[in-house]
């Protein structure tokens, strides 16, 4: 049997120390654990990066992040996500000529979440009137992005438990058991489909965007007419799923980069 992973043990010890007392300095942590400052610094820095620990601006002490304590979905600011992701989301729109959206869950306790938020939205190449949808809500059970977040986000199962799906079109799934089955299907195939469920003559495809350790923090989707997005048999266009996955990988890197 392989032994324990030492750095995980140490990270757990640091989290335990911070949960007992906030605002500890690096020196406190290192003497409390009998480890060198540089070892502790490396672990704390990683915990800050993954959003478990925050550094207080004044004094530089460390504390556990609110989002972890309160079962909230995000560690990163929704506007920062857009700034980091924009090159990839823009490029996806240029490549597919479809509208693209990056959707996240709001920074609230899981049981209070009833919709997703559009972090970034890029117009389709169509000449039709369009408006910037950034900041608007999306129906979690009806959209491709929403289904991906319910299926993959850390708080997805808790959100799904309290969700009361609202009908947007005649094709929206409003029966909770059918939504559950659709979310399971989304998880097993790795992408979400919206087949005129959130708006008529509109279809969507979305894939998860991962951050540190593989956690899903956003859903990246394209939207267009059903014939632009789906096959004649109402399946996902294989080419679009490939382009989405590629853009999602790039977005993940952008979200995790220390400097950007």
């Amino acid at each position, binding site marked *: 049997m392989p032994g324990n992973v030492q750095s995980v043990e140490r990270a757990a010890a640091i989290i335990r120390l911070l949960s007992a007392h906030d605002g500890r300095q690096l020196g406190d942590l290192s003497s409390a654990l009998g480890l060198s400052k540089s070892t502790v610094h490396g672990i704390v820095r990683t915990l800050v990066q993954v959003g478990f620990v925050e550094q207080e601006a004044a004094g530089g002490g460390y504390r556990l992040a609110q989002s972890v304590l309160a079962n909230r979905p995000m560690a990163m600011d929704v*506007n920062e996500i857009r700034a980091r992701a924009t*090159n990839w989301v*823009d*490029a996806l729109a*240029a490549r597919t000529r479809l509208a693209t959206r990056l959707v996240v869950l709001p920074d609230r306790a899981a049981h209070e979440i009833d919709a997703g938020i559009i972090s970034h939205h890029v*117009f389709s*190449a169509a000449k039709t009137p369009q408006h*910037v949808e950034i900041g608007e809500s999306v129906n979690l059970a009806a959209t491709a992005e929403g289904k991906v977040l319910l299926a993959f986000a850390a708080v997805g199962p808790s959100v799904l438990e309290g969700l009361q799906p609202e009908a947007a079109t005649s094709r929206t799934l409003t029966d909770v058991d059918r939504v559950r089955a659709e979310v399971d299907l989304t998880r097993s195939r790795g992408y979400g489909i919206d087949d005129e469920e959130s708006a008529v003559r509109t279809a969507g495809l979305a894939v998860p965007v991962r951050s540190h350790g593989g956690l899903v923090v956003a859903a990246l989707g394209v939207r267009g007419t059903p014939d632009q997005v789906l096959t004649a048999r109402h399946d996902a266009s294989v080419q679009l799923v490939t382009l989405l996955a590629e853009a999602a990988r790039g977005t993940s890197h952008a979200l995790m980069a220390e400097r950007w």
Partner: protein
Amino acid sequence: MAPRYVLSIDQGTTSTRAMVFDQHGRLAGMGQREHRQIFPQPGWVEHDAAQIWHNTRRVIPQALAELGISVADVAAVGVASQRETFVLWERDTGRPVCSAIVWQDTRSHQVAEGLLADPGADFFRSRAGIPPAAYFTAPRLSWLMADRPELRVRARRGELLMGTMETWLIWNLTGGPDGGVHVTDVTNASRTLLMNLEQLDWDPELLEFFGVPESILPTIVPSSQVVGTAVGALAGVPIAAAVGDQQGALFGQTCFEAGEVKCTYGTGAFLLMNTGADVVTSSHGMLSTVAYQLADGSKAYALEGSIAVAGGLVQWVRDGLGLVRTAPEIETLARTVDDSGGCVVVPAFTGLFSPYWSSGARGVISGLTSFVTAGHLARAVLESCAWQTNDVVEAMAADAGVPLKSLRVDGGMTSNHLLMQMVSDVLDVPVLRPTTSETVSLGAAYLAGLAVGFWSDMKVLRRNWHRAGQWDPRLSAERRDQQRLAWRAAIDRTLDVRN
């Protein structure tokens, strides 16, 4: 098979990048390397031109490799560059004889101030379209020749060549000492303070005034024209364009018609308005410059206005005040309130640029009451970017005699959704953002592609422009006028040295 791509080199202030664009103007591959910033004395900024050329040779194969294509797939190369930065080198060896002296360098500040104060200063504007400021090339070149007289002697003997960065790179790309082509384009030359803006040629009186021997100067060519063929990594590929970065962005945004304006939001912000085939002389503090010249000789001029502090103000809120952890978070903070609570910020950190041109102005935060929170301040910071944009746009519109119909934007700050809405509200016109944010490189690629027929004409380029987002004005005229009054009052305080 015909080549499917055009390659751009963007020689910028902090890094050199190579970018590959496809027929649709979409970015397909990129390589990037930063170069050293050298600060020998306070106010001096230099680059190592040899390092920049070294980096250029590295990023080109990097960009091609990222896309998995060979040089045979490249139809043409265009070079965009930071403007006004120059270097001198030996014609026979290609060795630089000085550091590249960067546009940010203020060593010739006092000389330039003296010239500006002279009653004859209008002479420069009437010939070159620009005033004798330290960041244009000529005052720094003149300083160098005076500081190192041996360079003047060698220059007169014909041993030295001078160039802005695109000139240096094109000379090296086409063989260097072994047949390198020594050219600059009209847009870069228009920023040297040595070119006659009407004739698009070196002005003998300006050369004499700054003591610049003509033998060291490159030949001025159109922005879009095959000037030579590359050797080395890009062997056989035509070098088909050169353009200054801001003019490149104007072209990349396809602002081809008179009256069309783009604004690039970075640390500062640069607005350029295409003014058509004739020079428009500003009576509102704008600079006159060349927008581009095509191979057939057809040309467009532009008015340029700059804002010293835009994104830099957000960096100050982050680093100086510690109100946000990252720059984009300012939008989150600003959205905690509905308005600025009467607070106005004017970021005249080192004076004000267009249209005020006051180096003595200092920043102001006005309308402070105990009601004002960090959120109000964040909002006032973003509003100041919008109102500074408006000041420049209004001055340009007055000079050009045409009102603005819409504003095309690019640069990092365009991901700030709230700011883009504010700009639209304040200017009262739609604000448009394209999907290709790398407009500088795209402009150089377009100019190069046009020269070799990769793109047939400018109409095709127009169709490549894909709208990523559009913000339409929502602010009532009444609210806009209130904000305008508060902004004007704060500007007046800024210009008053006693504040």
